[in-house]
């Protein structure tokens, strides 16, 4: 996949299929340690242990319609080629947590991409599910919690397309601010240098 936010959308869709009513997504980036960690935690029905042991095998899947499942295999491959790995914690009835790590500056690491689009459509498409998104970047962070949002916007239907598009725009702006705040003069110089090449 071209963007890590697409992997996140994919794993979150799995969480929804597993009957979750709360999905927490966290992206943590550290330029100093040169690491990036993405975790997606849900309170769905979880997975039995033998599935988790072979989770990176595309021929292991919890679905019953087909014998192939590619989502986590692709995420595992993306993480491994960036000096990272994935870890899956799950138990039947106790939800699932998928964590993927990457070397942040690795040339093969896909950009996070349009996280606002991923969140916007998850929220719009699943009004009865709550989502938490936390993005940490070098000590700063951005948090979105649809439980708070629903409280603040009493009576507003988050699945309404007009609401959803405004919400997506606000998230996009906030995330841009978060990333822009991190561009120190050094990284700007680097970007300029690359542009000159």
């Amino acid at each position, binding site marked *: *996949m071209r963007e890590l936010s697409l992997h996140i959308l994919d794993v979150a*869709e799995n969480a929804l299929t597993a009957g979750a009513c709360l999905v927490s997504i966290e992206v943590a980036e550290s330029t100093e340690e040169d690491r990036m960690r993405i975790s997606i935690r849900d309170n769905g029905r979880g997975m039995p242990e033998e599935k988790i042991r072979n989770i990176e095998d595309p021929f292991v899947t919890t679905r019953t*319609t087909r014998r192939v499942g590619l989502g986590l295999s692709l995420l595992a491959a993306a993480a491994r080629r960036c000096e990272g790995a994935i870890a899956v914690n799950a138990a039947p009835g106790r939800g699932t947590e998928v964590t993927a790590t990457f070397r942040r500056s690795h040339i093969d690491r896909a950009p996070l991409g349009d996280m606002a689009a*991923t969140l916007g*459509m998850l929220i719009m*498409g699943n009004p009865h599910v709550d989502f938490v998104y936390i993005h940490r970047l070098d000590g700063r962070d951005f*948090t979105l919690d649809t439980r708070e949002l629903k409280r603040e*916007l009493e009576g507003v239907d988050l699945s309404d*397309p007009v609401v959803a598009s405004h919400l997506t725009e606000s998230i996009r702006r906030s995330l841009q601010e978060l990333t822009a705040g991190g561009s120190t003069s050094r990284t700007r110089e680097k970007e300029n240098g690359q542009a000159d090449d």
Partner: protein
Amino acid sequence: MAKLTIEDLKRIKEQTTKATALRQGDARVRITVHMGTCGIAAGARPVMSALMEEMAEADRQDIRVVTSGCMGMCSSEPNVTVEVLDTEPIVYQHMDANRMRQVFRRHVLLGEVQSDFALAKI
């Protein structure tokens, strides 16, 4: 801790008071965007974003948008199924944002099936 600001929230609320009347009544049209791994990798998210924009613009109460998983035709993803009440469901293939807008405006709003993009009737 950065959050969506209260101003943001208020603005959303003000701008949408019109649209907040609960979407009642039965849906006349159901649009399914297939969002399995294959669909997402092939570009279902921009298709869904375009559809959300068209929905916001059309402001119609009788159209529902849902997502679903892979339907086993991964090579023709992104697939979108349009079901208009009392007509056969149409599966569209190889969708992108522009095709989605065309299908929405012509098929969903005007009832003209866009057979150029269609994969099959179900």
